[in-house]
């Protein structure tokens, strides 16, 4: 379906307006915060009778803590994070994990795709010398990097440093998956570090890292600074992968599920609006003004219209980039289970409860929200998951 301008929309199909509708949500200034920013700016929350307050977060850890302890009702979250939080990763192991159920509920996917793996010019050139044919392929096969790493080892050089934005992130697991598929051991053959997203392009420019996996606009920023090239996007590793989710406090959801359903309906509507090519200019303005005032609008517009300039002076290329359409917003529990298996694969946990993802991902809430946004409450087919390879 298509959605007209919000001004001409019929009143929201809601039966009731909650008496106390102040919901506080956190977001991190990234292009894929768009559904939250748009729902707020276009008054989509308000049409459902919700008073939503958005607050800007500088760290994913801060978002998690604020939701877990009730200082925020919910927010944008890296898709693997609710699993990591339930397993008590990054927390002192004192057995509170899972006591009384998971602290978070995933009620919608906010965005699919949208990350790039961007490598320094120097590393790109090493690949061209080591494997000229492989290095020319886009999306770049990890085998090209494997051959460059072998050449480095022969020359007695140290392994390259690759940055991700957080250990328990889609970036980490997808980068590791890509490396492993090319025969590279992410634990031994490269050095992984964490750098906050707004710093990655700078760090690549000053040579302290050799590459990174991060959301847009940061890959484009590196190309803009002429210090790196985009080798591939994370959609090339897992087509249709969930990137950010809307997670809410499980306690808040239990207290007033109808309110959260309306919240999800607003997000579905924002996603439909964002999927209309005619809204690109308005969407760009909203994301620029509310989240990324220091990033040139053209770069934001490229990301929102699924195009990228892969290297300096090249023309924009169409890529499998950000998706916000209704099917993309459905929270598949299988996504959570895949992340949990990656945590196990990379030794972050020994084991996890079989029903873990099913307890956190709540497609039932999405299904009740869908009709409020005018779409059929039919779960979309589950896109294929990447194979579980051994490292």
């Amino acid at each position, binding site marked *: 379906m298509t959605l007209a301008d919000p001004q001409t929309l019929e009143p929201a199909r809601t039966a009731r307006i909650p008496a106390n509708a102040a919901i506080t949500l956190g977001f991190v200034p990234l292009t894929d915060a768009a559904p939250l920013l748009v729902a707020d700016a276009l008054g989509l929350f308000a049409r459902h009778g919700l008073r939503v307050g958005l607050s800007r977060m500088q760290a994913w850890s801060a978002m998690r803590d604020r939701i877990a*302890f009730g200082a925020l009702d919910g927010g944008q979250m890296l898709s693997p994070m609710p699993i990591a939080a339930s397993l008590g990763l990054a927390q002192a192991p004192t057995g509170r994990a899972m006591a009384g159920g998971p602290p978070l509920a995933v009620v919608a996917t906010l965005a699919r795709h949208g990350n790039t793996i961007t490598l320094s010019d120097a590393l790109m050139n090493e690949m061209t010398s080591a494997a000229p044919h492989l290095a020319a392929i886009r999306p770049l096969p990890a085998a090209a990097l494997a051959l460059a790493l072998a050449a480095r080892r022969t020359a007695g050089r140290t392994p390259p440093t690759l940055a991700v934005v957080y250990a328990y992130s889609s970036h980490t697991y997808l980068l590791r998956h890509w490396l492993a598929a090319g025969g590279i051991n992410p634990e031994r053959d490269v050095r992984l570090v964490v750098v906050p997203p707004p710093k990655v392009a700078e760090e690549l420019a000053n040579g302290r*890292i050799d590459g990174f996996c991060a959301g847009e606009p940061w890959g484009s920023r590196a190309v803009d600074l002429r210090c790196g090239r985009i080798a591939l996007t994370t959609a090339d590793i897992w087509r249709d992968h969930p990137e950010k989710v809307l997670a809410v406090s499980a306690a808040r959801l239990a207290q007033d599920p109808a309110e959260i359903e309306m919240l999800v309906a607003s997000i579905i509507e924002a996603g439909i609006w964002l999927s209309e090519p005619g809204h690109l200019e308005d969407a760009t303005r909203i994301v620029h003004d509310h989240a990324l005032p220091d990033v040139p609008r053209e770069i934001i517009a490229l990301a929102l219209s699924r195009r990228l300039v892969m290297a300096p002076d090249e023309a924009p290329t169409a890529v499998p980039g950000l998706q916000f359409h209704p099917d993309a917003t459905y929270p598949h529990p299988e996504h959570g289970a895949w992340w949990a298996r990656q945590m196990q694969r990379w030794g972050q946990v020994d084991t996890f409860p079989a029903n873990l993802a099913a307890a956190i991902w709540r497609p039932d809430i999405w299904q009740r929200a869908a009709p409020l946004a005018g779409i059929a409450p039919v779960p979309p087919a589950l896109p294929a998951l990447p194979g579980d390879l051994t490292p």
Partner: protein
Amino acid sequence: MNLRVLLIDDNAERAAAVTAGLTADGCTVAALIPDHADLVAQVRAARADVIVCDLDHASRDAIESMRALNRDEPRPVVMFVDHADPASIAAAMEAGVAAYVIEGLQPGRVRAVIDVAVARFRAYQALRAELAEARKALSERKLIERAKGVLMQTRRMSEEEAYRALRRLAMDQGRRLADVADSVIALAGLPL
């Protein structure tokens, strides 16, 4: 307490206050304004038992990731879940303090460090709030002075009359004196 504390804070004034409090309690404190790229190296170099930082600090994601990414490095784990007492969790959240204990150390030993940090963060918050309040009061007084001047000039009132006129207007309209003064000044700017 005799613990090594790494304090990460962009706010030099507050960092000094926390450092003073912890040092008085027998801790060795290394305070730093983080350079994100070298954070892991700095954590290693500090050989800290505990890391204290602003709850919203951008470097928190990197601190938490050390455990998963660098197996041979110190392994900081966030402390919130260790507090069985919900009131102390709430206090830390409210004051904006996050604390990490390096794995291997008894979490109980760190409790006193967090209590000191929370107290100092709070005191700093209160100080800032008072300063903001004082600044607001000062700017409101300036507004009222200017509005009085407008009335004295345009209505040929005495200072006393102008003040009484403003107060009457505020009472009649149920508005704050500063807000009424603001309207008077705005109206004075209108072309006649």
